[in-house]
């Protein structure tokens, strides 16, 4: 049975089990934990996480990493906020388009250095992490975006219930995020050029031999990732309203955590966006549940996140290795049987 499932499917199933265990655990620790409010609360904060996890996944698949994602989200949130503050009558489509375009612009900068100048992504995005943030500090001129100056449609958007079942609400921001994740997921599995992301991350040498333009593929991954980070910036603005220069700080850790916990291989080539979504939900659920768990100080949240990454990747490596050994043994014994039949 187990050998029929792909490693990815096994990962997703395992994640769902872990998710369930986490919910069960906290329900014994926190009074009134299992309620519609939990779902609603997690669903609105997970929207942003899901987008940045998806953005990060696109880049990680190509054997790269984007550490600047938090700065991009913060910058886009702030810039979009300034734009709407100055032009309150701007149509919402233009505003969203602005966010996404700005995010793509940052993605192009990262992509240029990684794909064209061939600088390792970890160095490039570590640099732009600081660079984009500093430009934001300069651009903000020590001011903040405040909720009072934003149009009400924007502030109300994230929590608008599209669907209500009892106390459970399907809120607009969550719906947007899930829709985006699904679109990206389907695109990655169905669109021909998307397959190149996997190919480049899986075996760059073979990709080159297969005539795939590696530079262009990596560049595209960064630009798409930037676009998603831009959209996340828009949702960030809508959700919080008040935007300071520290907006999106620490998102690089959270996005990488969500992706690797969701089974995306940090060395590229394998992983599903759905996995990253579940990873994002798990990370966010633990993060927000710890706030309500009185046994553990709030200051431990970061540590738990870090520990979770280590645990997920260690488990993954160990399980996948033994799975590989087991499969090789299986196919070898099959081979032996065949050879025995052949020899007289």
């Amino acid at each position, binding site marked *: 049975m187990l050998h029929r499932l*792909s490693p990815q499917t096994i990962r997703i199933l395992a994640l769902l089990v872990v998710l369930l265990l986490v919910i069960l655990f906290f329900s014994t620790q926190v009074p009134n934990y299992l309620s519609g409010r939990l779902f609603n609360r997690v669903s609105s904060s997970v929207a942003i996480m899901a987008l940045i996890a998806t953005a990060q996944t696109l880049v990680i698949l190509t054997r790269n990493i984007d550490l600047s994602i938090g700065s991009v989200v913060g910058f886009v949130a702030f810039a979009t906020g300034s734009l709407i503050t100055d032009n309150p009558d701007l149509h919402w489509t233009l505003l969203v388009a602005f966010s996404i375009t700005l995010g793509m612009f940052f993605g192009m900068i990262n992509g240029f250095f990684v794909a064209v100048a061939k600088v390792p992504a970890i160095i490039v995005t570590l640099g732009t992490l600081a660079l984009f943030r500093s430009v934001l500090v300069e651009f903000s001129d020590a001011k903040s975006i405040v909720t009072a100056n934003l149009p009400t449609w924007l502030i109300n958007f994230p929590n608008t219930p599209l669907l209500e079942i009892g106390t459970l609400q399907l809120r607009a921001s969550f719906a947007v995020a899930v829709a985006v994740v699904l679109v990206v997921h389907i695109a990655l599995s169905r*669109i*021909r050029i998307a*397959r190149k992301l996997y190919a480049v991350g899986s075996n760059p040498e073979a990709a080159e031999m297969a*005539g795939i333009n590696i530079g262009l593929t990596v560049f595209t991954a960064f630009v798409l990732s930037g676009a998603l980070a831009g959209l996340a910036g828009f949702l960030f603005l809508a959700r919080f309203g008040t935007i300071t220069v520290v907006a999106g700080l620490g998102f690089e850790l959270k996005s990488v955590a969500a992706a690797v916990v969701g089974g995306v291989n940090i060395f590229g080539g394998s992983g599903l966006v759905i996995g990253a979504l579940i990873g994002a939900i798990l990370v966010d659920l633990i993060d927000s549940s710890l706030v309500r768990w009185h046994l553990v100080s709030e200051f431990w949240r970061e540590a738990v996140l870090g520990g979770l990454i280590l645990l997920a990747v260690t488990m993954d490596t160990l399980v996948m290795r033994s799975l590989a050994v087991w499969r*090789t043994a299986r196919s070898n014994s099959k*081979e032996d049987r065949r050879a025995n039949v*052949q020899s007289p």
Partner: protein
Amino acid sequence: MCEPLLRLENVTKRFGMTTALQDMSLDIFSGEVHAIVGENGAGKSTIIKIMTGIHQTTEGRLVIDGTARNISGARAARDIGIAAIYQEPMVFPDLDVAENIFISARSGWFLNQAQLHAEAQRLLGRIGIALDSSSIASGLTLAAQQAVEIARALSQDVRILIMDEPTASLSAHEAKQLRKVARTLAEEGVAVIYISHRLEEIFDIADRVTVIRDGIHISTRPIGDVTSEGMVSEMVGRDVGNYFVKAPSTVTSNSLLRVEHLTREGIFSDISFDLMQGEVLCMAGLVGARRTDVALALFGINPSSSGQIFYKGRQINPSCAREAMDAGIAYVSEDRRKLGLAMPMSLRSNVSLATLRSFVGRWGFLDQSLERMTALEYRDRLNIRAPDVELSVGMLSGGNQQKTMLAKWLRMKPDVLIFDEPTRGIDIGAKAEVHALIREFVANGGGAIVISSDLPEVLAMGDRILVMREGRQMGIVNSTETGQETIMRLATGQASVEAA
């Protein structure tokens, strides 16, 4: 026959000072299986790389379907219909079989999974391979991965399929199946270029055979006009004896290393030899002979699964490099860049790397002045041409890098030194110096095992020569009583002698 599908016209390829191919002309016709044979380093890989667009010719041209074409890269080669498969398959380990096959297909935006899998099954069926198109590539056997590569080539309407040592890592049964596939494709009109060291395979499937030697075309004949003896003598038939001077032997009767029935399951089996003090034992063989694997077993990197190793009469069983080093065995790798040297580091730190313990001074700090003195001493003794020992070794020439690597291991003062292709890719002057160093080492009471694919070198260096073929010991011959052709016949499995 009609017009050739692909013609190499007077192709010359140089890399810096070395000439890999010299005035090579070759015709490939559709529907033939064309074997190319030659020793290691004869230029076979260069021919493949030129045909697949990885290298460009220095002189001469490629004519395809009667028109001169420039193959600028992998994509251009694919568009013409040239594909290559190698001993190590180039698959995407995380993708499934169907995805691997159609990775560079270009028609249509959307993938129709059902149609892809059906098409994949059809292609695999065409070459008679039963394989589930939804299996992930990393879980497949090498043979299956190669089948995936062939199916990928077919999906791109391949007209010339190059197979480079495709059977070197396969079992006999798998190899036979692969040859059948090659034959089937040729009958469908594909030109198959088949490169193999297994001469019996060539007699099994080739229509024509081209022999190359030292980058020069020697002959192209229909298979019916070729004998294995003729082929072997053409492969090795260069002027011998002028390259290297044979040094006087210093062999004693003290056994340093005794290896009995050493086996590593599925890799090599039943290797037995004695290494005497003062002896140079050469290991000869072709690609896939598994000589390096034997060396790595002795050095503890990939331990053997059965058999015994006696070091100065005491049984040892090294399970990691440290244990082998502590016993007194050192291994100088063939891959300078990957396994031999830390390229960005200085000559000084590379020389001390294997013996760092002995440089730890007071307070546990490294004694840098001792390191420096040692490096300078070895630089002068080994004649490493570097103005200063603080220079990073990446900036030195290949020959000087090789000598730096020797310095690192000589500093360990081992009793047994294993050299893996110690003179590959270095110029003739440096080769002679390396030979002299190895001789000096054994004259001072050491024993050396030298793995080399250069037959004149093997004959000049070795006191005895152990010939391997596909993980088996074909025999041990005395270098004064043997010639290149004998070794080649052993290495290609045309003959075997009982261990001397």
